[in-house]
């Protein structure tokens, strides 16, 4: 028998269940990551630190971007062309670009952003020094006029690492380049939106998916292509203790560690729920930097003797250990990249102490102790200086290794005082490969005396090669210039590359889609 009451109740029950189901909140996909450092500064143009570069890639977008094969591809730019005389570059932005506050991205914004970036970045400075002007044509188009043909226009605008030319709204980009932008100005047009209200320095920084972002149609490759975001929210958790990071990953409290310590990798490799991924196959390069103004390193023959005395494998074994994560590579512009070459390198980096000793005698080395700064608090750098000391002493150098924390070293390396009075002769550091892909980009090749980076090498020939490289538009000729430069540089070194190494990221098995790129990016990453 039909019962109205029962039917009504059934309908109500069904409706309420349906309603409940409809109202049930869908669990937001949150990716929890421990990066190599906490984000303290929000302006990726103000500083060259890598954590700010990574933060930049979350919030802001770039005009061009480098793909997996080191080719520069348009990103915010829809189309570009260069005049027949190679002097005028015209760029047109693609449709639908919007800042996170809903305003459209305009050519004016881009011009202001390029100017601010160029005030801080060495490649940008070189670009603008060669430029006659940068002007807005219309809302979506701007022109860059060069004084003479310049071979690094796209490489500059698509520079993958610090400082990356991120595009910012005009109002933000007009901030004094020597001042940090304000927290309320962290508004980009990139694939993620920075959550200012949830940023707690020392605890976490939060980004949510930019639902209005229109990715390019091309598949992602390196830093280029479609930036499709597959999670709702990304949290970078500040966790300073390396052992705690591992525990948190193993227990599933976090999804990923950007750079776990090499000594802890065997622990992670044994865990079936975790996998290691070398997301940056060009990796990093250890570098020994001379103070070329301090005796005896003002003598190129003495510097060359160090080059002859060094052997890369000892440095790499002492710091990285497992050969899976390092590579002996003599090419200063990094093995596996278009400008990698061994030209001129046959007689150096072979650990030839006898030859080095002979060179030192010829150079008239008087036994001045070499003040070698040794940083003790960064695990990836700590063991480098003792190896350098041992190899140099074998070749006849007297070495005074001075131990200090990295920040003390950073402060001391900019001092031009005599080495025995607060200055220095040498120290070791590491570069991300993406920062040293060519002689203009690689800061330690800058040999413009006082304008060069600390170490202040002064070599007109190297500068001539760098200028030639910048002006050359033919890639084959650029490569030839690099080979010629390298052959000269080996005898007049500004620094020494002491090996290539890799820092895999560790992630739980339910995380997929990390891109192979010089900087860790979080579009395309999904969580199952």
């Amino acid at each position, binding site marked *: 028998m039909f019962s109205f009451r029962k039917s009504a109740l059934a309908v109500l029950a069904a409706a309420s269940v349906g309603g409940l189901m409809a109202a049930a909140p869908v669990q937001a996909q949150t990716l929890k990551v421990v990066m190599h450092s906490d984000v303290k500064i929000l302006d990726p143009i103000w500083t060259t630190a890598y954590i700010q570069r990574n933060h930049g890639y979350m919030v802001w977008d770039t005009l061009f971007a480098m793909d997996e094969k080191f080719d520069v591809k348009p990103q915010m730019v829809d189309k570009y062309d260069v005049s027949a005389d190679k002097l005028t570059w015209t760029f047109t932005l693609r449709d639908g670009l919007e800042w996170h506050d809903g305003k459209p991205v305009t050519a004016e914004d881009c011009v202001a952003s390029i100017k601010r970036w160029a005030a801080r970045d060495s490649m940008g400075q070189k670009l603008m020094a060669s430029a006659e002007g940068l002007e807005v044509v219309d809302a979506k188009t701007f022109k860059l006029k060069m004084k003479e043909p310049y071979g690094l226009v796209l490489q500059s605008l698509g520079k993958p690492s610090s400082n990356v030319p991120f595009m910012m709204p005009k109002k933000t980009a007009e901030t004094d380049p020597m001042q940090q932008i304000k927290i309320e100005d962290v508004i980009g047009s990139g694939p993620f939106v920075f959550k200012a209200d949830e940023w707690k320095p020392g*605890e976490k920084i939060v980004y949510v998916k930019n639902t209005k972002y229109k990715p390019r149609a091309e598949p992602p490759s390196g830093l280029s292509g479609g930036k499709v975001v597959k999670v709702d929210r990304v949290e970078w958790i500040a966790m*300073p203790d390396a052992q705690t990071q591992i525990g948190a990953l193993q227990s599933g409290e976090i999804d990923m560690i950007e750079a776990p310590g090499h000594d802890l990798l065997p622990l992670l490799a044994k865990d079936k729920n975790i996998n290691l991924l070398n997301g940056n196959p060009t990796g990093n390069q250890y570098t020994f930097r001379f103070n070329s103004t301090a005796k005896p390193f003002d003598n190129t023959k003495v510097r060359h003797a160090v080059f002859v005395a060094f052997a890369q494998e000892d440095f790499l074994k002492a710091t990285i250990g497992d050969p899976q994560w390092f590579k002996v590579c003599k090419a200063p512009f990094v093995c596996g990249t278009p400008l990698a070459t061994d030209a001129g390198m046959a007689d150096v980096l072979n650990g030839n102490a006898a030859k080095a000793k002979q060179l030192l005698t010829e150079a008239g080395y008087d036994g001045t102790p070499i003040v070698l700064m040794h940083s003790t608090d960064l695990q990836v750098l700590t063991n480098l200086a003792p190896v350098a000391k041992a190899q140099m002493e074998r070749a006849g150098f007297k070495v005074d290794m001075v131990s200090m924390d990295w920040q003390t070293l950073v*402060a001391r390396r900019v001092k031009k005082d005599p080495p025995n009075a607060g200055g220095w002769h040498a120290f070791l550091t590491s570069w991300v490969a993406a920062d040293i892909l060519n002689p203009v980009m690689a800061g330690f090749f800058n040999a413009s005396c006082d304008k060069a980076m600390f170490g202040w090498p002064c070599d007109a020939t190297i500068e001539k090669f760098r200028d030639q490289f910048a002006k050359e538009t033919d890639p084959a000729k650029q490569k030839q210039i690099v080979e010629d430069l390298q052959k000269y540089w080996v005898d007049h070194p500004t620094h020494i590359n002491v090996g290539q190494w890799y820092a895999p990221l560790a992630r739980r098995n339910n995380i997929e889609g990390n891109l192979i790129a010089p900087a860790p990016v979080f579009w395309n990453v999904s969580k199952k």
Partner: protein
Amino acid sequence: MLDFIARRLIAIIPVLAVVAVFVFLMLRLTPGDPAAVIAGDNATSDQIADIRAKLGLNEPIWTQFAIWIGNVLQGNFGESFFFKKTVAELIAQRVEPTLALAICTLLFAVTVSVPIGVMAAYRQGSLLDRAVMGFSVLGFSVPGFVIGYCLIYVFAIELGWLPVQGYIRIGVNFWGFLERMILPSLTLSVGFIALISRITRASVLEVLNEDYIRTARAKGLSNRVVLMRHALRNAAVPILTVIGLGIAILIGGAVVTESVFGLPGLGRLTVEAVLSRDFPTIQTVILLFSVVYVVINLLIDISYTLFDPRIRY
């Protein structure tokens, strides 16, 4: 009493003045340059020099000090060199985890250490006494971070009972807060328990030999009453003193414990500020710790009067 408190509060001023001058000078004399840290590894010397100028670090040291102390006297502790936030704002964000850790640790440590110290004294020479003394030696000797890692391994990774790290604010989720406080408090408590239980044992032992304890026993009072009402109360002053002194150990221990357990507290803020040479933050945090230390000692002094009526200020 009020006169005593007022005098002690006024005495804070010269203490803070000395701390301020000392910290300021120490920081300026320590090697390191915040501008170089801010500029990053790829920066040129010119860029670093520009940032130094913007931060006012090129001014003579006494000018820098005068500006800073002038601002502090107006309640302005300055802006962090790194975060675009005022130091007061940063400290306000970080104070809760440290306060929570300190309170949980104190509560746990006092609750455990005083009874075991009393019992160890009462049963001097017994297995319990030896165990307590053995534990206290161990508690003093094993570094906090080792205890922390062991606890994480057992309770978070192997058993999965508690989270490895992190902090949830008490107002957001009480249980989440509590479960994230257990391991850090336990870690920090170990040294504290060792210290207090040892002092409690020694103080109670001394008191147990007094005539009035014998009298109390002769009156037929139970052991519990003798111990709690007569022995412990009379032994309380040195115990309270040690608890007060222990606050300093607690502040130092919090630096390590907060790093191991990923707690975003003042201890970690201090470490981060020191490593990056964030002068305004370091100066303010140390001033704050000094105030806390002085005030806690004042409170301990006042609390003596509760246990020993002979003490008058």
